[in-house]
């Protein structure tokens, strides 16, 4: 009780330190980038620390970060969404189907109209997936882990049904150029949104969405209620917050990010394969956790999540640059995740036995 007050006083006395403390995951990213830059310079291809690699990492991180933003909200609200991966590829498959069967070639009459319709379908599928999760969790009062474990395979199955158990290839000429080059990381200026700014469009989308979510979390009543139900649903209920409704809204909202993630995924691989999504949810959750999200709810940040996705992808890229085989890459990423969470724990006095010894 009283023992914690001195540290609190320190924090008050030093707002700079407090601000720096919030940047936790960013230090990890800096360390990882620094480490790989040095190692790559010594032993590798000397191409890790380059503008092109920054683009490649930004693009692949965006593919994880965008759906992870929805996951961040869910985790802050005390939930979890294991179905995010298959919901994402279900959306992607729906997009691929729309671009195969229901659109017209670019340049034809009404092309834009049909593209908008196709995107709306993807978005609708994403929100519907989230709504289903949210409704089951809120109405049946089953823990999110179980519900989404179920919907994970349900979405996979639905995806396989609409894709006829195959991969759906869209008509390439139906894809507008901006969509085709969403994940472009080359040196052709024409293929970026702003030809003076060589940042992949996918990363730009992630930045815009990230700022949006951060503002939502920080400035809106909905955002504050999300934190409330995540940290203690009983207290939230006591305070008149409609826990069930908020839960449904959070999952549905996260569905938007699943759909946005699906658009990026689709733009990247240019097809829809429903079974691609299995395993993606773990990468997404890892990004949130690396970014300081707490699986017991009430804690997490979009900024952290984006950094978390960058850390994962930076490690992957760095390992490729250093010719470290896949096997070691996996070990390193796993070690980093555990260390990051361990360090995060140090801030809140965990592990307890260590701090008891230090006293």
């Amino acid at each position, binding site marked *: *009780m*009283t*023992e*914690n*007050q*001195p*540290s*609190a*006083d320190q*924090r*008050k006395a030093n707002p700079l330190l407090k601000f720096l403390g919030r940047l936790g995951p960013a230090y990890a990213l800096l360390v990882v980038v620094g480490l790989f830059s040095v190692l790559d310079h010594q032993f590798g291809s000397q191409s890790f620390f380059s503008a092109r690699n920054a683009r490649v990492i930004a693009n692949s991180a965006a593919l994880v970060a965008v759906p992870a933003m929805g996951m961040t909200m869910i985790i802050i609200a005390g939930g979890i969404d294991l179905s995010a991966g298959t919901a994402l590829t279900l959306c992607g498959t729906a997009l691929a189907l729309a671009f195969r069967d229901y659109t017209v070639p670019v340049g034809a009459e009404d092309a834009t109209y049909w593209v908008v319709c196709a995107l709306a379908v993807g978005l609708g599928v994403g929100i519907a997936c989230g709504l289903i999760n949210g409704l089951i969790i809120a109405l049946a009062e089953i823990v999110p882990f179980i519900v989404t474990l179920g919907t994970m395979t349900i979405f996979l199955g639905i995806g396989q049904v609409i894709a006829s158990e195959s991969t759906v290839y869209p008509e390439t000429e139906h894809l507008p150029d901006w969509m085709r080059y969403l994940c472009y990381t080359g040196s052709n200026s024409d293929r970026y949104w702003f030809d003076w700014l060589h940042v992949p469009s996918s990363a730009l989308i992630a930045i815009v969405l990230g700022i949006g979510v951060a503002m939502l979390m920080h*400035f*809106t*009543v*909905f*955002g*504050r*209620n999300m*934190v*409330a139900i995540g*940290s*203690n649903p*009983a*207290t*939230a*209920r*006591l*305070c*008149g*917050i*409609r826990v069930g409704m908020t839960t449904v809204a959070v999952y549905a909202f996260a569905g938007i990010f699943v759909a946005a993630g699906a658009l990026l995924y689709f733009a990247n691989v240019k097809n829809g394969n429903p079974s691609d999504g299995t395993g993606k949810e773990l990468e997404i959750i890892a990004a949130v956790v690396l970014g300081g999200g707490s699986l017991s709810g*009430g*804690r997490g940040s979009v900024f952290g999540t984006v950094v978390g996705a960058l850390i994962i992808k930076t490690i992957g890229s760095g390992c490729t640059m250093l010719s470290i085989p896949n096997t070691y890459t996996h070990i390193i990423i796993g070690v980093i995740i555990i260390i990051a969470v361990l360090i995060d724990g140090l801030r809140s006095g965990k592990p307890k036995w260590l701090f*008891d010894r230090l*006293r």
Partner: protein
Amino acid sequence: MSSLLEVTDVSKRFGPTRALDQVCLKAESGRVLALIGENGAGKSTLLKVLSGAHRCDSGWMMLDGKPYSPSGPIDAKNRGVAIVYQELTLAPDLSIEDNLMLGRSGTGLGTLVRGVQRRRVREAMRRVGLGHLSPAARTGDQSIATCQLIEVARALISDAKIILLDEPTSSLPAADVDRLFEIIGQLRERGLAIIYISHFLEEVRRVADDYAVLRDGQSVGEGSLSDISDDQIISLMVGRDVNDLFPHVPHEVGMPRLTLKNVSSSPAPVDVSLRIHEGEIFGVAGLVGAGRTELLRCLYALEPSYQGHVQLEGRSLPHRVGARRREGFGLLSEDRKSEGLAQTLSVTENICMGNHRRFSTLGIVKLGARKAETERLIRQVEVKASSGDQIVSELSGGNQQKVAFARLLAQNADIYLLDEPTKGIDVGTKAEIYRMIGELAASGRTVVFVSSYLPELLSVCDRIGVMSRGRMTEIRKAKDWTEEDLMAAAVG
């Protein structure tokens, strides 16, 4: 004569704060020592040092004439020091027997000899008055009072020489308190030393022989209880004279505001009819489980179903928490830890939770207004926090309760439903809360005050109703009640 436990000049620092500053303490066999002090005075830290959870920075301890410096809770237990914590530490899914035997094995081989164990378990349970329960019963199904007694039984079974009880009565109804005291008396007869921590001076008087007072981590007085008055103890505790434990704020009882007609729910309340007025403090007494909490939760629409009518100034109300809150109902939960407050969030978040409507337009929070209002409330109820950003779990119990109170004020509630608002908080803070309750009534608010601590009900309330088995059995003006009458009505 040498004492069983002797603590000399023990100090413990956490960063720049001195939690314990050269504390001295003596506990004798066959006597009960009351350890008294406000929350944050260092009692819990001393307890943790004694139990081996913390190591002291300087000073020494002697147990039974030998140096005592436990390396951890297990070591302490083996040396004969047993602790019954304020927060229950039982595993809810285990049987009572398993909980009692947790951490100790029956034989050298580590296998449990069921027969021997069962006998010891039954013996210990009988001694704490739980002989009627099956040792195989699931612990989580027992009442809080029973769990507390199981904790005591756990201390007994470990052949302790010293038992430390950390506010054991804070969640016990009066009848169980009596039983506990009886048991403490028996343990004293058998030559054990008891260290008893409590805020309730009446209890201390009933159960203890000696006292030791801590304030701000220092020993400020010790001796025999027969040589000191209550007021002297209190002034030792708070470091100032507390002439009035129950500050009285004059207030006028006005027009009827809240009317209950045959309100029932399952399992409680049962058929409660009641009329409560503006500017009135209505006390609710009764045993734990009599339905007092359920009555408040029913009024606040937290429980899903009920029969009967709840009317506010003649209007019926929809049965939804949100709607009740809009009509000015505010509930202070008895369970600060798991319901009353979100422990992992900041003071500001907790105060504003559910009240954001006041600081927002179209769903966008005005952070400036929010900050100004919470800072005003923090000052008003005198929360001792470094800032509004401090995490609630870092605050002491009394300060946490003030945060919960501040939330009701932020809500600008008209009808305050207070469920054990002074549970587990120190005397000084209690007085502040009584004053706030009085001021609420003086400003025309209605207060429903549920408590197990009869002196505060008698001093603070205008009327007191007694609940028994879910029914409101009797309502009288506070001045027409005595503690004995209240007890009789509660048990009847």
